């Protein structure tokens, strides 16, 4: 871990037992779903790192493990060199990593006014002396662009975009070092998305926040983030600075993902989709590389060996988990839909 790294995840695994009825449990036939299956990731101080991937890739679960909401079964999460316990984190530790959720309708207490919510946090965590709680509450509302009288209002009196501002105020109230944002704009209309993205960007530079941004929207990621980590079925399969990743993806899944983004200008009329098929069930993962069942360049070795995430020889910043990293030509892609 170098000096500029603030957060490090090492060998993090999170699994859930699924479909385990009592009889199955008694017969020791529990199925474990490995939502996050051995992830190493470092986040640098002050950067905006994106975690991208499709549903079921484990990006939200990883984010929740980092924030301490979902305890990791294995592995370590370190903040500034200090190992954070997987469960029962101290208040001081909780403060340092805060999270903003996707749905501002279900993540705010409907019975608590916005001011009440913020004041409670400030008091419980002793963020400011008691006498300054009121002033700090007003300051937080101002920072996220809400009017002063918002403090007396209940969440239901706000629009989706305003609620997300409340959620952001709640997260930054504790002066965290790392802000985890889990799809913070996915539930919002386009015109409102922009205000929240701009706000996150402003706060990040003003407060020197480190941002871990989870999204499936690659256009948003390219706009906001410095680096991108791509997840597929519980693993990180590629990490690179944003522009390097978009210009030169080394993993065939990343290449396919980028090609699948709908563009404002109609592309070529070729009928071959960028990535074929559906992802396999996370309960029955293929042997070897997890992407090989959909991969246009898979070979024999891909079925035999699970590729590790390895830095490129040309650019140590750019890692990919593929036996044929860099050979992402989709020229031989099958033409069936």
């Amino acid at each position, binding site marked *: 871990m170098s000096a500029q790294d603030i957060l490090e995840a090492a060998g993090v695994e999170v699994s859930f037992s699924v479909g385990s009825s009592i009889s199955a449990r008694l017969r020791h036939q529990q199925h474990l779903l490995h939502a996050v299956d051995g992830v190493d990731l470092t986040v640098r101080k002050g950067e905006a790192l994106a975690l991208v991937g*499709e*549903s079921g890739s484990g990006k939200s679960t990883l984010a929740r493990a980092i924030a301490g909401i979902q305890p990791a079964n294995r592995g370590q999460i370190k903040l500034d060199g200090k190992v954070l316990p997987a469960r029962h984190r101290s208040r001081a530790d909780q403060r340092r990593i805060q999270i903003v959720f996707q749905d501002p309708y279900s993540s705010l207490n409907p019975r608590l006014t916005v001011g009440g919510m913020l004041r409670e946090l400030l008091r419980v965590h002793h963020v400011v002396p008691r006498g300054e709680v009121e002033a700090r509450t007003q300051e937080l509302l101002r920072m996220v662009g809400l009017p002063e009288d918002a403090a007396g209002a209940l969440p239901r009196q706000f*629009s989706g*975009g305003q609620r997300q501002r409340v959620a952001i105020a709640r997260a930054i109230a504790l002066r965290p070092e790392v802000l985890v944002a889990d799809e913070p704009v996915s539930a919002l*209309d*386009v*015109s*409102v*998305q*922009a*205000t929240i*993205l*701009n706000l996150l960007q402003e706060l990040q530079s003003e407060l020197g926040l480190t941002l871990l941004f989870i999204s*499936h929207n*690659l*256009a*948003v990621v*390219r*706009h*906001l983030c410095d680096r991108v980590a791509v997840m597929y079925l519980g693993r990180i399969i590629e990490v690179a600075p*944003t*522009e390097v990743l*978009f210009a030169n993806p080394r993993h065939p899944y990343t290449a*396919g*993902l980028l*090609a*699948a*983004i*709908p*563009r*404002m*200008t*109609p*592309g070529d009329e070729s*009928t*071959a*989709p*960028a*990535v*074929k098929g*559906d992802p396999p069930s996370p309960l029955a993962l293929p042997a070897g590389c997890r992407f090989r069942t959909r991969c246009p360049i898979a070979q024999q070795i891909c079925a035999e060996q699970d590729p590790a995430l390895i830095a490129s020889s040309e650019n140590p910043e750019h890692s990919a988990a593929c036996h044929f990293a860099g050979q992402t030509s989709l020229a031989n892609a099958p033409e*069936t*839909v």
Partner: protein
Amino acid sequence: MTGALQLEVSDLRVQIASHGGVVRPIDGVSLEIAPGEAVGLVGESGSGKSMTLKSILGLLPPDAKVTSGSVVFDGTELTGLSHSRLNKIRGRRIAMIFQEPMSALNPVMRVGNQIAEGPRVHLGMSRAQSVERAIDLMRRVGIPEPERRFRAFPHEFSGGMRQRVMIAMALSCDPELILCDEPTTALDVTIQDQILRLLAKLCHESGTSLMFVTHDLPVVAQVCHKVAVMYAGRIVERGTVSEVFGRPLHPYTLGLLRSAPDVDRPGLSLVPIPGSPPSLASPPSGCRFHPRCQFAEEDCKVTDPPLRLLDGDRATACLHYERCLDQMGTDT
């Protein structure tokens, strides 16, 4: 306008009586679709785009009713048509694909039978014929091993496969028009890419017209030739996709384009549209967009601008649309 129109919606108005008074989610919408054409209908939540789509087939919620206007499909007026007459058109000549296939499919009926039902009911096919047709359709939409998966239930399918079943159902009676309501919004981007390509290819092959409702502008750019932009129950701009997205002539369209990040233009800063959409129970006077509009003048508060036809099929409902051109000029 040239040739016969497949679908012509004129000055459609829908109202819903609620506790807060009368709400008009659709307030004077006019739309045209020519045979073989793919038209996108875009807008944000509450703009009335889905409602417009549903009103075409008489699928409005019970408390909503069409108060005026007409929907003419291939010479037949659809508004006010009895259920039995509408049922001869629904699924047979106009098909629909919904956003959430899991709630649109029957969970306790085998998918093959759901696909075969249309041809049996509408085309008078025998059981054996319809089964054969369903299997053929499943193959065409890219469902592997269709003979085996004919007997599967919807819950055994992934989201993308379910949407393929929906497409197979929609195509089962060779409809002239398919109405799509956010068909890929619930899907992952690689699956969305597969479904959009499939839909575009199949409609192109069979010459089926498409009406495509979505909030996602790039998705429209991938599938449609023409696009209409809705705001607060009205169409504010329409034209070909390249014209409307390349040279918007309504400040709302301009606002939508400037507020969404474009993956191919990462350096551009995002300019949100100030304010929020108006209440449909008491929309603002004059132009409904004027309280949020950067170009609004005094006349915009008074005059309700009609959708004016410009050159070709281009139309805008803005009194000062020239200003959008100047603005786009400063962006690039």
